[in-house]
Protein backbone atom coordinates (compact mmCIF):
# COMPACT_ATOMS: atom_id res chain seq x y z
CA UNK A 1 0.00 0.00 0.00
CA UNK A 2 3.01 2.28 0.06
CA UNK A 3 5.39 3.29 -2.63
CA UNK A 4 2.86 4.77 -5.01
CA UNK A 5 2.00 7.72 -2.88
CA UNK A 6 2.81 11.15 -4.16
CA UNK A 7 1.72 13.65 -1.62
CA UNK A 8 1.77 17.31 -2.33
CA UNK A 9 5.37 17.97 -3.30
CA UNK A 10 5.63 21.01 -1.10
CA UNK A 11 3.86 20.77 2.26
CA UNK A 12 2.57 24.11 3.48
CA UNK A 13 4.97 25.90 5.79
CA UNK A 14 4.58 24.80 9.39
CA UNK A 15 3.71 27.48 11.93
CA UNK A 16 6.78 28.94 13.54
CA UNK A 17 6.57 28.75 17.27
CA UNK A 18 8.95 29.37 20.10
CA UNK A 19 10.32 26.12 21.57
CA UNK A 20 8.89 25.21 24.92
CA UNK A 21 11.96 26.01 26.97
CA UNK A 22 14.85 28.22 26.06
CA UNK A 23 16.67 27.92 22.74
CA UNK A 24 18.14 24.42 23.23
CA UNK A 25 17.14 21.38 21.19
CA UNK A 26 13.64 20.00 21.74
CA UNK A 27 15.09 16.52 22.10
CA UNK A 28 18.60 15.25 22.57
CA UNK A 29 19.77 11.63 22.85
CA UNK A 30 23.37 10.90 23.83
CA UNK A 31 24.85 7.38 23.88
CA UNK A 32 21.43 5.87 24.37
CA UNK A 33 21.01 2.11 24.62
CA UNK A 34 17.91 0.15 25.40
CA UNK A 35 17.96 -3.50 26.39
CA UNK A 36 14.58 -5.16 26.98
CA UNK A 37 14.14 -7.57 29.89
CA UNK A 38 14.44 -10.60 27.55
CA UNK A 39 17.93 -9.39 26.57
CA UNK A 40 16.98 -7.87 23.21
CA UNK A 41 19.21 -4.88 22.50
CA UNK A 42 16.74 -2.63 20.71
CA UNK A 43 19.04 0.44 20.72
CA UNK A 44 22.83 0.15 20.73
CA UNK A 45 24.18 3.65 21.18
CA UNK A 46 22.09 6.34 19.56
CA UNK A 47 23.00 10.02 19.38
CA UNK A 48 20.31 12.28 18.00
CA UNK A 49 19.55 15.97 18.29
CA UNK A 50 16.24 17.41 17.19
CA UNK A 51 15.93 21.17 17.02
CA UNK A 52 12.75 23.15 17.40
CA UNK A 53 10.60 23.28 14.26
CA UNK A 54 12.42 20.42 12.58
CA UNK A 55 10.49 17.69 10.76
CA UNK A 56 12.24 14.33 10.88
CA UNK A 57 11.38 11.01 9.27
CA UNK A 58 12.71 7.88 10.95
CA UNK A 59 12.95 4.98 8.51
CA UNK A 60 14.38 1.48 8.67
CA UNK A 61 13.40 -2.16 8.51
CA UNK A 62 11.05 -3.76 10.98
CA UNK A 63 12.73 -4.51 14.30
CA UNK A 64 15.46 -1.90 13.81
CA UNK A 65 14.42 0.00 16.96
CA UNK A 66 12.32 2.84 15.54
CA UNK A 67 9.41 2.42 17.95
CA UNK A 68 11.79 2.03 20.87
CA UNK A 69 13.43 5.31 19.88
CA UNK A 70 10.02 6.99 19.76
CA UNK A 71 9.08 5.63 23.21
CA UNK A 72 12.24 7.18 24.63
CA UNK A 73 11.60 10.49 22.84
CA UNK A 74 8.07 10.44 24.28
CA UNK A 75 9.25 9.64 27.85
CA UNK A 76 7.07 6.54 27.79
CA UNK A 77 10.16 4.45 28.59
CA UNK A 78 13.61 5.10 30.02
CA UNK A 79 16.98 4.29 28.41
CA UNK A 80 19.14 1.47 29.79
CA UNK A 81 22.12 3.79 29.52
CA UNK A 82 22.92 7.21 28.05
CA UNK A 83 20.77 10.29 28.49
CA UNK A 84 17.54 11.48 26.95
CA UNK A 85 16.80 15.19 27.26
CA UNK A 86 13.38 16.54 26.34
CA UNK A 87 12.99 20.32 26.39
CA UNK A 88 16.14 20.42 28.45
CA UNK A 89 15.03 17.86 31.08
CA UNK A 90 16.98 14.66 31.71
CA UNK A 91 14.00 12.27 31.72
CA UNK A 92 15.76 9.68 33.91
CA UNK A 93 15.81 12.23 36.74
CA UNK A 94 12.14 13.19 36.60
CA UNK A 95 9.56 11.51 38.85
CA UNK A 96 6.41 10.01 37.29
CA UNK A 97 4.42 13.15 38.04
CA UNK A 98 6.86 15.42 36.16
CA UNK A 99 7.16 12.98 33.25
CA UNK A 100 3.38 12.89 32.99
CA UNK A 101 3.28 16.69 33.03
CA UNK A 102 5.86 16.74 30.24
CA UNK A 103 3.70 14.40 28.15
CA UNK A 104 0.60 16.44 28.95
CA UNK A 105 2.07 19.77 27.89
CA UNK A 106 5.14 19.28 25.69
CA UNK A 107 4.69 16.03 23.75
CA UNK A 108 1.91 14.85 21.46
CA UNK A 109 1.47 11.31 20.14
CA UNK A 110 -0.17 9.89 17.04
CA UNK A 111 -0.39 6.11 16.80
CA UNK A 112 -0.83 3.72 13.91
CA UNK A 113 -4.09 2.61 15.55
CA UNK A 114 -6.04 5.74 16.23
CA UNK A 115 -7.10 4.82 19.79
CA UNK A 116 -10.20 6.99 19.75
CA UNK A 117 -12.81 6.33 22.46
CA UNK A 118 -15.76 4.58 20.81
CA UNK A 119 -19.18 6.16 21.29
CA UNK A 120 -17.62 9.53 22.08
CA UNK A 121 -17.84 12.50 19.71
CA UNK A 122 -14.81 13.73 17.79
CA UNK A 123 -14.95 16.92 19.86
CA UNK A 124 -14.82 15.08 23.19
CA UNK A 125 -12.10 12.73 21.96
CA UNK A 126 -9.96 15.73 21.08
CA UNK A 127 -10.87 17.54 24.31
CA UNK A 128 -9.47 14.54 26.21
CA UNK A 129 -6.08 15.57 24.87
CA UNK A 130 -6.23 18.37 27.48
CA UNK A 131 -7.77 16.29 30.28
CA UNK A 132 -4.49 15.81 32.12
CA UNK A 133 -3.16 19.33 31.50
CA UNK A 134 -5.40 20.92 34.16
CA UNK A 135 -7.46 22.76 31.56
CA UNK A 136 -11.06 23.58 32.57
CA UNK A 137 -13.76 21.62 30.64
CA UNK A 138 -15.19 24.56 28.67
CA UNK A 139 -11.73 25.64 27.59
CA UNK A 140 -10.93 22.05 26.56
CA UNK A 141 -13.91 21.88 24.24
CA UNK A 142 -13.34 25.33 22.81
CA UNK A 143 -9.75 24.48 21.94
CA UNK A 144 -10.80 21.02 20.67
CA UNK A 145 -13.14 22.68 18.18
CA UNK A 146 -10.27 24.88 16.97
CA UNK A 147 -7.94 21.88 16.64
CA UNK A 148 -10.53 19.96 14.62
CA UNK A 149 -10.86 23.00 12.38
CA UNK A 150 -7.11 22.98 11.82
CA UNK A 151 -7.18 19.36 10.64
CA UNK A 152 -10.09 20.13 8.32
CA UNK A 153 -12.82 18.47 10.37
CA UNK A 154 -14.80 21.51 11.50
CA UNK A 155 -17.90 19.87 10.04
CA UNK A 156 -17.43 16.62 11.95
CA UNK A 157 -17.39 17.80 15.60
CA UNK A 158 -20.35 15.70 16.74
CA UNK A 159 -19.48 12.57 14.76
CA UNK A 160 -18.50 9.42 16.58
CA UNK A 161 -15.45 7.43 15.47
CA UNK A 162 -17.51 4.75 13.69
CA UNK A 163 -19.17 7.45 11.59
CA UNK A 164 -15.79 8.62 10.27
CA UNK A 165 -13.46 7.18 7.62
CA UNK A 166 -10.03 5.88 8.62
CA UNK A 167 -8.33 9.02 7.36
CA UNK A 168 -10.79 11.21 9.24
CA UNK A 169 -10.30 9.18 12.43
CA UNK A 170 -6.55 9.64 12.16
CA UNK A 171 -7.04 13.37 11.66
CA UNK A 172 -9.13 13.41 14.85
CA UNK A 173 -6.21 11.67 16.56
CA UNK A 174 -3.85 14.31 15.15
CA UNK A 175 -6.13 17.05 16.47
CA UNK A 176 -6.06 15.37 19.90
CA UNK A 177 -2.25 15.24 19.77
CA UNK A 178 -1.87 18.93 18.92
CA UNK A 179 -4.76 20.45 20.89
CA UNK A 180 -2.33 21.18 23.74
CA UNK A 181 0.14 22.83 21.30
CA UNK A 182 2.99 20.45 22.17
CA UNK A 183 6.53 21.45 21.26
CA UNK A 184 7.18 17.92 19.99
CA UNK A 185 4.80 15.75 17.96
CA UNK A 186 5.67 12.05 17.67
CA UNK A 187 3.94 9.79 15.16
CA UNK A 188 4.54 6.02 14.84
CA UNK A 189 3.48 4.80 11.38
CA UNK A 190 0.55 7.24 11.33
CA UNK A 191 -0.43 6.23 7.80
CA UNK A 192 0.17 2.50 8.25
CA UNK A 193 -3.54 1.71 8.40
CA UNK A 194 -4.67 4.12 5.70
CA UNK A 195 -5.02 4.03 1.92
CA UNK A 196 -2.53 6.20 0.07
CA UNK A 197 -4.80 9.19 -0.51
CA UNK A 198 -5.88 9.39 3.15
CA UNK A 199 -2.29 8.78 4.23
CA UNK A 200 -1.11 11.72 2.15
CA UNK A 201 -3.79 13.93 3.63
CA UNK A 202 -2.86 12.92 7.18
CA UNK A 203 0.80 13.62 6.47
CA UNK A 204 -0.05 17.04 5.03
CA UNK A 205 -2.10 17.85 8.13
CA UNK A 206 0.64 16.58 10.46
CA UNK A 207 3.21 18.79 8.77
CA UNK A 208 0.85 21.73 8.89
CA UNK A 209 -0.07 21.60 12.56
CA UNK A 210 3.03 20.29 14.31
CA UNK A 211 5.76 22.46 15.73
CA UNK A 212 8.53 19.88 15.81
CA UNK A 213 7.63 16.62 14.09
CA UNK A 214 9.13 13.11 14.25
CA UNK A 215 7.44 10.51 12.05
CA UNK A 216 8.27 6.83 11.89
CA UNK A 217 7.40 5.44 8.50
CA UNK A 218 7.99 2.49 6.23
CA UNK A 219 7.04 4.55 3.29
CA UNK A 220 10.08 5.90 1.44
CA UNK A 221 8.05 8.34 -0.68
CA UNK A 222 6.42 9.68 2.39
CA UNK A 223 9.76 10.07 4.12
CA UNK A 224 11.14 11.87 1.10
CA UNK A 225 8.74 14.71 1.66
CA UNK A 226 10.26 15.58 5.03
CA UNK A 227 13.36 17.78 5.16
CA UNK A 228 15.38 15.42 7.38
CA UNK A 229 15.61 11.61 7.28
CA UNK A 230 17.18 9.27 9.82
CA UNK A 231 17.75 5.66 8.78
CA UNK A 232 18.05 2.95 11.44
CA UNK A 233 19.29 -0.62 11.36
CA UNK A 234 19.90 -3.05 14.25
CA UNK A 235 19.45 -0.42 16.91
CA UNK A 236 21.80 2.14 15.35
CA UNK A 237 21.41 5.22 13.22
CA UNK A 238 23.12 4.26 10.01
CA UNK A 239 22.40 7.23 7.79
CA UNK A 240 21.21 10.82 8.06
CA UNK A 241 20.02 12.99 5.18
CA UNK A 242 18.86 16.55 5.06
CA UNK A 243 17.24 18.16 2.05
Amino acid at each position, binding site marked *: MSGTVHPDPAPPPRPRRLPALGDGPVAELAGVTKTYPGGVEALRGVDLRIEADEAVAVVGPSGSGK*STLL*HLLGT*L*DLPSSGTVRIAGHDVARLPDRRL*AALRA*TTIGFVFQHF*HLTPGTSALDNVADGL*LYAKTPPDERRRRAALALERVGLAHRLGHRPHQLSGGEQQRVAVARAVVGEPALLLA*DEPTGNLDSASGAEVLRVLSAVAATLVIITHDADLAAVLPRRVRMRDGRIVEEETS
Partner: protein
Amino acid sequence: MSPRDLLRVGAVGLRARPSRALLSALGIAIGIATMVAVIGISASSRADLIRQLDSLGTGLLTVTPGQTVRGEQASLPRTAVAMAGQIGPVRGAAATAQLEARIYRSDLIPPERTGGVSVQAATQRLLDTLQGTGAWFSPATSRYPTVVLGAVAAQRLGARGGDQVWVGERWFTVLGVLDPLPLAPEIDRSALVGWPAAAEHLGFDGHPTTVYVRADPESVTDVAAVLPRTVNPEHPEETTVARPSDALAARAAAAGALTNLLLGLGGVALLVGGVGIANTMVVSVLERRREIGLRRALGATRTDIRLQFLTESLLLSALGGLAGLALGALVTTGYALGHGFPPTLDAWAPAGAVAATLLVGVTAGIYPAARAARLSPTVALSAP
Protein backbone atom coordinates in the same frame (compact mmCIF):
# COMPACT_ATOMS: atom_id res chain seq x y z
CA MET B 1 -8.12 15.98 38.05
CA SER B 2 -11.30 17.64 39.23
CA PRO B 3 -13.90 15.42 40.95
CA ARG B 4 -16.16 15.92 37.96
CA ASP B 5 -13.51 14.72 35.50
CA LEU B 6 -12.69 11.84 37.81
CA LEU B 7 -16.33 10.74 37.88
CA ARG B 8 -16.47 10.97 34.10
CA VAL B 9 -13.38 8.87 33.45
CA GLY B 10 -14.41 6.51 36.25
CA ALA B 11 -17.67 5.87 34.42
CA VAL B 12 -15.98 5.15 31.06
CA GLY B 13 -15.75 1.43 31.75
CA LEU B 14 -19.33 1.19 33.04
CA ARG B 15 -20.68 2.98 29.98
CA ALA B 16 -18.70 0.75 27.66
CA ARG B 17 -20.08 -2.46 29.23
CA PRO B 18 -23.31 -1.65 31.05
CA SER B 19 -24.59 -5.21 31.37
CA ARG B 20 -21.36 -6.39 32.94
CA ALA B 21 -21.52 -3.45 35.35
CA LEU B 22 -25.08 -4.34 36.36
CA LEU B 23 -24.21 -7.99 36.94
CA SER B 24 -21.16 -7.24 39.03
CA ALA B 25 -23.13 -4.72 41.10
CA LEU B 26 -25.83 -7.32 41.73
CA GLY B 27 -23.91 -9.12 44.49
CA ILE B 28 -23.52 -5.88 46.43
CA ALA B 29 -27.20 -5.10 45.87
CA ILE B 30 -28.27 -8.46 47.30
CA GLY B 31 -25.96 -8.14 50.30
CA ILE B 32 -27.05 -4.61 51.15
CA ALA B 33 -30.74 -5.38 50.54
CA THR B 34 -30.54 -8.37 52.91
CA MET B 35 -28.85 -6.40 55.64
CA VAL B 36 -31.13 -3.39 55.34
CA ALA B 37 -34.28 -5.55 55.26
CA VAL B 38 -33.15 -7.59 58.28
CA ILE B 39 -32.38 -4.47 60.26
CA GLY B 40 -35.55 -2.74 59.10
CA ILE B 41 -37.87 -5.66 59.86
CA SER B 42 -36.47 -6.23 63.32
CA ALA B 43 -36.58 -2.50 64.06
CA SER B 44 -40.18 -2.37 62.88
CA SER B 45 -41.29 -5.30 65.04
CA ARG B 46 -39.43 -3.81 67.99
CA ALA B 47 -41.14 -0.49 67.35
CA ASP B 48 -44.45 -2.33 67.37
CA LEU B 49 -43.72 -3.95 70.76
CA ILE B 50 -42.60 -0.64 72.20
CA ARG B 51 -45.75 0.99 70.90
CA GLN B 52 -47.77 -1.71 72.66
CA LEU B 53 -45.80 -1.16 75.85
CA ASP B 54 -46.47 2.56 75.69
CA SER B 55 -50.18 2.08 75.33
CA LEU B 56 -50.41 -0.66 77.97
CA GLY B 57 -48.23 1.15 80.46
CA THR B 58 -45.59 -0.31 82.72
CA GLY B 59 -47.32 0.39 86.04
CA LEU B 60 -48.97 -3.01 86.53
CA LEU B 61 -47.59 -5.41 89.17
CA THR B 62 -48.78 -8.85 90.18
CA VAL B 63 -48.36 -10.52 93.55
CA THR B 64 -48.65 -14.29 93.76
CA PRO B 65 -48.05 -16.67 96.62
CA GLY B 66 -44.75 -18.50 96.36
CA GLN B 67 -43.78 -21.50 98.44
CA THR B 68 -43.46 -21.89 102.17
CA VAL B 69 -40.09 -22.71 103.67
CA ARG B 70 -41.23 -26.31 103.78
CA GLY B 71 -41.91 -26.30 100.04
CA GLU B 72 -45.68 -26.21 100.23
CA GLN B 73 -47.89 -23.92 98.16
CA ALA B 74 -48.31 -20.70 100.17
CA SER B 75 -51.42 -18.58 100.12
CA LEU B 76 -52.10 -14.87 100.38
CA PRO B 77 -54.02 -13.40 103.35
CA ARG B 78 -57.63 -12.33 102.77
CA THR B 79 -56.59 -8.76 103.52
CA ALA B 80 -54.03 -8.63 100.71
CA VAL B 81 -55.98 -6.35 98.36
CA ALA B 82 -56.95 -3.90 101.07
CA MET B 83 -53.37 -3.74 102.29
CA ALA B 84 -51.96 -3.19 98.83
CA GLY B 85 -54.43 -0.35 98.31
CA GLN B 86 -52.89 1.43 101.31
CA ILE B 87 -49.55 1.99 99.59
CA GLY B 88 -49.26 5.66 98.58
CA PRO B 89 -48.48 5.54 94.82
CA VAL B 90 -50.91 2.67 94.20
CA ARG B 91 -53.79 3.80 91.98
CA GLY B 92 -55.76 0.58 92.16
CA ALA B 93 -55.59 -2.92 93.54
CA ALA B 94 -57.67 -5.99 92.76
CA ALA B 95 -57.43 -9.74 92.98
CA THR B 96 -58.43 -13.00 91.41
CA ALA B 97 -58.66 -16.36 93.07
CA GLN B 98 -58.40 -19.70 91.34
CA LEU B 99 -61.51 -21.80 92.09
CA GLU B 100 -61.93 -25.58 92.14
CA ALA B 101 -65.10 -25.32 90.06
CA ARG B 102 -65.11 -26.12 86.39
CA ILE B 103 -67.12 -24.56 83.62
CA TYR B 104 -69.05 -26.31 80.85
CA ARG B 105 -71.16 -25.13 77.97
CA SER B 106 -73.90 -27.49 79.18
CA ASP B 107 -74.49 -29.97 81.99
CA LEU B 108 -74.15 -32.85 79.45
CA ILE B 109 -70.45 -32.34 78.58
CA PRO B 110 -68.20 -34.88 80.37
CA PRO B 111 -65.82 -33.40 82.96
CA GLU B 112 -62.62 -34.12 80.98
CA ARG B 113 -63.64 -31.69 78.23
CA THR B 114 -63.16 -28.48 80.14
CA GLY B 115 -61.64 -26.66 77.17
CA GLY B 116 -58.76 -25.11 79.09
CA VAL B 117 -60.87 -22.45 80.75
CA SER B 118 -60.31 -21.81 84.44
CA VAL B 119 -62.85 -20.37 86.80
CA GLN B 120 -61.72 -17.49 88.98
CA ALA B 121 -63.27 -15.20 91.49
CA ALA B 122 -62.62 -11.52 90.71
CA THR B 123 -62.88 -8.46 92.89
CA GLN B 124 -64.98 -5.53 91.72
CA ARG B 125 -62.04 -3.30 90.80
CA LEU B 126 -60.21 -5.83 88.59
CA LEU B 127 -61.29 -4.29 85.29
CA ASP B 128 -60.22 -0.81 86.45
CA THR B 129 -56.89 -2.05 87.74
CA LEU B 130 -56.08 -3.84 84.50
CA GLN B 131 -57.39 -0.86 82.52
CA GLY B 132 -59.39 -3.35 80.50
CA THR B 133 -62.57 -2.88 78.52
CA GLY B 134 -65.61 -5.01 77.89
CA ALA B 135 -68.44 -6.42 79.98
CA TRP B 136 -68.14 -6.28 83.77
CA PHE B 137 -70.05 -6.90 86.97
CA SER B 138 -72.02 -4.28 88.76
CA PRO B 139 -71.86 -4.48 92.59
CA ALA B 140 -75.25 -6.17 92.34
CA THR B 141 -74.48 -8.75 89.68
CA SER B 142 -71.27 -9.70 91.44
CA ARG B 143 -73.48 -11.30 94.12
CA TYR B 144 -75.51 -13.39 91.68
CA PRO B 145 -74.54 -16.53 89.73
CA THR B 146 -73.17 -14.65 86.75
CA VAL B 147 -69.87 -14.90 84.85
CA VAL B 148 -67.83 -12.60 82.71
CA LEU B 149 -65.76 -14.49 80.12
CA GLY B 150 -62.22 -13.63 79.04
CA ALA B 151 -61.76 -13.22 75.26
CA VAL B 152 -60.14 -16.63 74.78
CA ALA B 153 -62.48 -18.37 77.21
CA ALA B 154 -65.54 -17.09 75.32
CA GLN B 155 -64.10 -18.45 72.10
CA ARG B 156 -63.31 -21.85 73.60
CA LEU B 157 -66.73 -22.18 75.15
CA GLY B 158 -68.54 -20.73 72.19
CA ALA B 159 -70.55 -18.58 74.56
CA ARG B 160 -71.59 -14.95 74.63
CA GLY B 161 -73.64 -12.54 76.75
CA GLY B 162 -77.02 -13.99 77.75
CA ASP B 163 -75.97 -17.64 77.42
CA GLN B 164 -76.17 -20.04 80.30
CA VAL B 165 -73.07 -21.98 81.37
CA TRP B 166 -72.69 -24.82 83.89
CA VAL B 167 -70.28 -23.84 86.68
CA GLY B 168 -69.66 -26.17 89.57
CA GLU B 169 -73.08 -27.55 90.32
CA ARG B 170 -75.44 -24.98 88.81
CA TRP B 171 -76.24 -22.69 85.90
CA PHE B 172 -74.62 -19.27 85.68
CA THR B 173 -75.63 -16.48 83.27
CA VAL B 174 -72.95 -15.02 81.01
CA LEU B 175 -72.97 -11.24 81.51
CA GLY B 176 -70.65 -10.61 78.58
CA VAL B 177 -67.12 -10.92 77.27
CA LEU B 178 -63.94 -8.98 78.11
CA ASP B 179 -61.69 -7.50 75.43
CA PRO B 180 -58.22 -9.11 75.27
CA LEU B 181 -55.79 -8.06 78.02
CA PRO B 182 -52.23 -8.29 76.64
CA LEU B 183 -50.67 -7.81 80.08
CA ALA B 184 -52.90 -10.42 81.77
CA PRO B 185 -53.35 -13.26 79.29
CA GLU B 186 -54.39 -15.54 82.19
CA ILE B 187 -57.60 -13.49 82.50
CA ASP B 188 -58.27 -13.98 78.77
CA ARG B 189 -58.46 -17.72 79.45
CA SER B 190 -60.71 -17.39 82.53
CA ALA B 191 -64.37 -17.31 83.39
CA LEU B 192 -64.75 -14.75 86.16
CA VAL B 193 -67.26 -14.91 88.95
CA GLY B 194 -67.94 -12.03 91.33
CA TRP B 195 -66.08 -12.29 94.69
CA PRO B 196 -69.26 -12.48 96.84
CA ALA B 197 -70.97 -14.86 94.39
CA ALA B 198 -67.99 -17.19 94.49
CA ALA B 199 -68.18 -17.34 98.26
CA GLU B 200 -71.90 -17.93 98.22
CA HIS B 201 -72.29 -20.40 95.36
CA LEU B 202 -68.87 -22.05 94.87
CA GLY B 203 -67.52 -22.44 98.39
CA PHE B 204 -64.69 -19.91 97.92
CA ASP B 205 -62.57 -19.28 101.08
CA GLY B 206 -61.64 -15.66 100.30
CA HIS B 207 -57.87 -16.12 99.81
CA PRO B 208 -56.68 -14.39 96.62
CA THR B 209 -54.23 -16.22 94.33
CA THR B 210 -53.15 -13.18 92.33
CA VAL B 211 -53.20 -9.57 93.45
CA TYR B 212 -53.03 -6.97 90.66
CA VAL B 213 -51.64 -3.58 91.62
CA ARG B 214 -51.59 -0.51 89.38
CA ALA B 215 -48.84 1.88 90.51
CA ASP B 216 -47.59 5.21 89.21
CA PRO B 217 -45.07 4.21 86.51
CA GLU B 218 -42.29 6.26 88.19
CA SER B 219 -42.82 4.52 91.54
CA VAL B 220 -43.18 0.96 90.26
CA THR B 221 -39.90 -0.28 91.67
CA ASP B 222 -40.54 1.29 95.07
CA VAL B 223 -44.01 -0.20 95.21
CA ALA B 224 -42.68 -3.60 94.13
CA ALA B 225 -40.13 -3.44 96.95
CA VAL B 226 -42.71 -2.89 99.70
CA LEU B 227 -45.45 -5.13 98.30
CA PRO B 228 -44.41 -8.44 99.92
CA ARG B 229 -44.26 -6.90 103.41
CA THR B 230 -47.51 -5.02 102.92
CA VAL B 231 -49.53 -7.80 101.38
CA ASN B 232 -48.27 -10.61 103.58
CA PRO B 233 -46.69 -9.05 106.71
CA GLU B 234 -46.24 -12.40 108.42
CA HIS B 235 -44.54 -14.19 105.53
CA PRO B 236 -43.21 -11.62 103.06
CA GLU B 237 -40.78 -14.26 101.76
CA GLU B 238 -43.71 -16.34 100.55
CA THR B 239 -44.85 -13.84 97.96
CA THR B 240 -43.63 -13.29 94.42
CA VAL B 241 -43.93 -9.88 92.78
CA ALA B 242 -43.77 -9.59 88.97
CA ARG B 243 -44.19 -6.88 86.38
CA PRO B 244 -46.08 -8.29 83.35
CA SER B 245 -44.79 -5.56 81.03
CA ASP B 246 -41.26 -6.94 81.59
CA ALA B 247 -42.12 -9.90 79.34
CA LEU B 248 -43.05 -7.54 76.52
CA ALA B 249 -39.95 -5.46 77.10
CA ALA B 250 -37.86 -8.64 77.00
CA ARG B 251 -39.43 -9.57 73.68
CA ALA B 252 -38.61 -6.12 72.36
CA ALA B 253 -35.01 -6.55 73.46
CA ALA B 254 -34.84 -10.05 71.99
CA ALA B 255 -36.18 -8.92 68.62
CA GLY B 256 -32.54 -8.65 67.53
CA ALA B 257 -31.51 -12.22 68.35
CA LEU B 258 -32.30 -13.90 65.03
CA THR B 259 -31.24 -10.73 63.31
CA ASN B 260 -27.53 -11.37 63.90
CA LEU B 261 -27.55 -14.62 61.94
CA LEU B 262 -29.38 -13.07 58.99
CA LEU B 263 -27.14 -10.03 59.18
CA GLY B 264 -24.18 -12.37 58.90
CA LEU B 265 -25.69 -13.92 55.79
CA GLY B 266 -26.09 -10.45 54.29
CA GLY B 267 -22.45 -9.78 55.15
CA VAL B 268 -21.38 -12.90 53.30
CA ALA B 269 -23.39 -11.82 50.25
CA LEU B 270 -21.70 -8.41 50.46
CA LEU B 271 -18.28 -10.05 50.62
CA VAL B 272 -19.05 -12.24 47.62
CA GLY B 273 -20.29 -9.12 45.83
CA GLY B 274 -16.99 -7.39 46.63
CA VAL B 275 -15.01 -10.31 45.23
CA GLY B 276 -17.19 -10.15 42.11
CA ILE B 277 -16.37 -6.48 41.64
CA ALA B 278 -12.65 -7.07 42.16
CA ASN B 279 -12.80 -9.83 39.56
CA THR B 280 -14.63 -7.64 37.06
CA MET B 281 -12.12 -4.88 37.63
CA VAL B 282 -9.11 -7.15 37.06
CA VAL B 283 -10.60 -8.31 33.76
CA SER B 284 -11.43 -4.73 32.85
CA VAL B 285 -7.84 -3.60 33.47
CA LEU B 286 -6.50 -6.42 31.29
CA GLU B 287 -8.87 -5.54 28.46
CA ARG B 288 -8.15 -1.84 28.66
CA ARG B 289 -4.37 -1.86 28.61
CA ARG B 290 -4.30 0.25 25.47
CA GLU B 291 -6.74 2.79 26.89
CA ILE B 292 -4.50 3.01 29.94
CA GLY B 293 -1.42 3.44 27.76
CA LEU B 294 -3.18 6.12 25.72
CA ARG B 295 -4.11 8.04 28.88
CA ARG B 296 -0.52 7.83 30.08
CA ALA B 297 0.62 9.14 26.70
CA LEU B 298 -1.88 12.00 27.06
CA GLY B 299 -0.24 12.90 30.36
CA ALA B 300 -2.02 10.85 33.03
CA THR B 301 0.10 10.15 36.10
CA ARG B 302 0.10 6.74 37.76
CA THR B 303 -2.08 8.31 40.43
CA ASP B 304 -4.58 9.51 37.80
CA ILE B 305 -4.88 5.94 36.50
CA ARG B 306 -5.18 4.46 39.98
CA LEU B 307 -7.89 6.98 40.91
CA GLN B 308 -9.75 6.27 37.68
CA PHE B 309 -10.05 2.57 38.45
CA LEU B 310 -10.74 3.12 42.14
CA THR B 311 -13.54 5.44 41.10
CA GLU B 312 -14.87 2.83 38.70
CA SER B 313 -14.88 0.25 41.48
CA LEU B 314 -16.57 2.69 43.84
CA LEU B 315 -19.20 3.55 41.25
CA LEU B 316 -19.89 -0.15 40.70
CA SER B 317 -20.41 -0.85 44.37
CA ALA B 318 -22.33 2.41 44.90
CA LEU B 319 -24.66 1.34 42.10
CA GLY B 320 -25.23 -1.98 43.87
CA GLY B 321 -25.45 -0.31 47.27
CA LEU B 322 -28.11 2.18 46.22
CA ALA B 323 -30.17 -0.51 44.51
CA GLY B 324 -29.82 -2.71 47.60
CA LEU B 325 -30.79 0.12 49.92
CA ALA B 326 -33.92 0.84 47.90
CA LEU B 327 -34.81 -2.85 47.74
CA GLY B 328 -34.19 -3.35 51.46
CA ALA B 329 -36.35 -0.34 52.35
CA LEU B 330 -39.09 -1.63 50.06
CA VAL B 331 -39.03 -5.09 51.67
CA THR B 332 -39.05 -3.53 55.14
CA THR B 333 -42.04 -1.35 54.32
CA GLY B 334 -43.95 -4.20 52.71
CA TYR B 335 -43.32 -6.61 55.58
CA ALA B 336 -44.10 -4.05 58.28
CA LEU B 337 -47.33 -2.89 56.64
CA GLY B 338 -48.33 -6.52 56.11
CA HIS B 339 -47.93 -7.20 59.84
CA GLY B 340 -49.38 -3.92 61.03
CA PHE B 341 -45.99 -2.73 62.33
CA PRO B 342 -44.89 0.87 61.98
CA PRO B 343 -42.21 0.70 59.19
CA THR B 344 -39.01 1.69 60.96
CA LEU B 345 -35.48 2.10 59.62
CA ASP B 346 -33.09 3.84 61.98
CA ALA B 347 -30.84 6.36 60.24
CA TRP B 348 -27.75 4.33 61.13
CA ALA B 349 -28.86 1.45 58.89
CA PRO B 350 -28.76 3.35 55.57
CA ALA B 351 -25.65 5.16 56.78
CA GLY B 352 -24.06 1.82 57.60
CA ALA B 353 -25.09 0.44 54.22
CA VAL B 354 -23.45 3.38 52.46
CA ALA B 355 -20.31 2.99 54.57
CA ALA B 356 -20.17 -0.77 53.88
CA THR B 357 -20.64 -0.10 50.18
CA LEU B 358 -17.82 2.43 50.05
CA LEU B 359 -15.55 0.13 52.05
CA VAL B 360 -16.24 -2.79 49.72
CA GLY B 361 -15.81 -0.59 46.65
CA VAL B 362 -12.44 0.76 47.76
CA THR B 363 -11.19 -2.61 48.97
CA ALA B 364 -12.24 -4.37 45.78
CA GLY B 365 -10.65 -1.64 43.67
CA ILE B 366 -7.26 -1.37 45.39
CA TYR B 367 -5.58 -4.32 43.70
CA PRO B 368 -6.95 -3.81 40.15
CA ALA B 369 -6.22 -0.08 40.37
CA ALA B 370 -2.65 -0.75 41.48
CA ARG B 371 -2.20 -3.14 38.55
CA ALA B 372 -3.53 -0.54 36.13
CA ALA B 373 -1.21 2.12 37.54
CA ARG B 374 1.83 -0.17 37.21
CA LEU B 375 1.22 -0.93 33.52
CA SER B 376 3.94 0.37 31.22
CA PRO B 377 2.65 3.24 29.07
CA THR B 378 4.34 1.80 25.96
CA VAL B 379 1.53 -0.73 25.53
CA ALA B 380 -0.58 1.94 23.87
CA LEU B 381 1.85 2.19 21.02
CA SER B 382 2.11 -1.53 20.40
CA ALA B 383 -0.21 -3.16 17.91
CA PRO B 384 -3.50 -4.51 19.29
